[in-house]
């Protein structure tokens, strides 16, 4: 398996662009079905009325996180080919605070505003125009903003590295925190706005508990399983790397920093493609 497909050279650029279009299509459709084309629904979390934003976001993060961990852990994906975002702690905290302010003032975040505009919300069009203007302001002031933009540059930094823990254990902790947050909002959340259920699926305390148990079991199994495996793999690969690098044709940046047990390299069967991995896009403009 050569995955991720585009960086590993399994598909070309045209196919990748078509793929991302359809992924966007699904993303937009699901956002709409979650109710995120409505600014009232989106902002009601900030008045403790409707916890859909937290539930949808946290569930999505947990699903993708476990999937990534699993795919890289069992060797379906080349971890080095997945582009990791660099951390600029100061800039990102300031940016986050500003984006939160923009969210509560404008009623949307960028992705949801596109969905809302597509649903006919005229205020979303005003928000989109504002986004365009704000992006212009940033680019115009780019030179002046440099100190802020680069504030807290740390390179690629992940929570497992910072905490000095196995990724699997951090992932399991995230799953537990998510479940705790879901349970807290289900129990103490405002019950006056009855959240509609998918296909009339009733969310009774029992079904909720069952769902949580399943997620918990999955999280723990995958999390701890990956944690153990990552350790083994790291141990196996540590001595094996120098010869591999000597044979390797085009692998200039193999000097992977001794990351605390990040699943740095999958099990042996996957070799990087001969041309090295290509990144779809510079991480910088990625958003």
């Amino acid at each position, binding site marked *: 398996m050569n*995955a*991720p497909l585009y960086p590993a050279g399994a598909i070309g650029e045209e196919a990748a662009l*078509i793929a991302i279009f359809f*992924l*966007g299509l699904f*993303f*937009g459709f*699901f956002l*709409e*079905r*979650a*109710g995120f084309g409505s600014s009232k629904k989106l*902002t009601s979390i*900030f*008045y403790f009325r409707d916890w*859909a934003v937290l*539930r949808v*976001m946290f569930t*999505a*993060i947990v699903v*993708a996180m476990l*999937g*990534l961990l699993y*795919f890289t852990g069992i060797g379906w*994906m080349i971890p080095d*080919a997945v*582009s990791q*975002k*660099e951390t600029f702690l100061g800039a*990102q905290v*300031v940016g*986050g*605070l*500003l984006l*939160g302010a923009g969210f509560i*003032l*404008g009623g*949307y975040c*960028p*992705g949801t505003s*596109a*969905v809302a505009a*597509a*649903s*006919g*919300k*005229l205020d979303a069009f005003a*928000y989109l125009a*504002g*986004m*365009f203007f*704000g992006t212009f302001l940033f*680019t115009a002031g780019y030179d002046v903003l440099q100190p802020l933009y680069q504030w807290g540059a*740390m390179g690629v930094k992940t929570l497992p590295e910072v905490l000095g823990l196995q990724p699997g254990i951090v992932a399991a902790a995230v799953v537990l925190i998510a479940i705790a947050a879901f349970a807290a909002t289900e129990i103490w959340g405002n019950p006056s706005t009855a959240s*509609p259920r*998918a296909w009339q699926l009733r969310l009774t305390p029992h079904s909720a508990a069952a769902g949580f148990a399943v997620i918990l079991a999955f999280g723990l199994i995958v999390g701890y399983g990956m944690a153990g495996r990552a350790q083994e793999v790291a141990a196996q690969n540590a001595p094996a790397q120098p010869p591999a690098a000597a044979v390797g044709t085009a692998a200039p940046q193999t000097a992977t920093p001794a990351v605390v047990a990040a699943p740095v390299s999958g099990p042996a069967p996957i070799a990087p493609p001969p041309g090295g991995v290509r990144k*779809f896009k510079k*991480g910088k403009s*990625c*958003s």
Partner: protein
Amino acid sequence: MNHSETRYWNPYLAGVAIGLTLLAAFYVLGTGLGASGAFTQFLAAAGQKLAPAWTEANHYLRQYAAEGKNPLKDWMTFQFAGVFLGGLLGALTAGRLRFEVERGPRASVRSRLLLAFVGGAVTGIAARLARGCTSGQALSGGAQLSLGSWAFMMAVFAAAFALARFVRRQWQ
């Protein structure tokens, strides 16, 4: 309320669906989803047409609008088009496509549109500063357990919760 309207999905189900879409993006492209970056591409494209000299000289935009580069042929713009059409498809099939200014009962149309524009502008600056928005940083970077993404996400919620009381009239 329109009775023919499809109900919203269970949030956990919608979350799983979005999570799987995100995972598919990682699997196919080696990178997560994103939305705000499309605006950089749009701006670069507009700059190329309207103010080529300025765009070429701008240290940020010239990364995207260099000689012979088409900023519109980029995964961000393709994805943005997809999100828009996906939202349209969703709204149409749910009977939710309605032209309106969504606002609280005590908010005027003018104040709502003005605040939406201001909020958008603040977000536009913020997303470039943070190198991503709720999609690119919070969802995608969050799933990768990136330190900066989690700090970003906490900051977003902290600011929005803190400021919510001042604009309550807009929504409630």
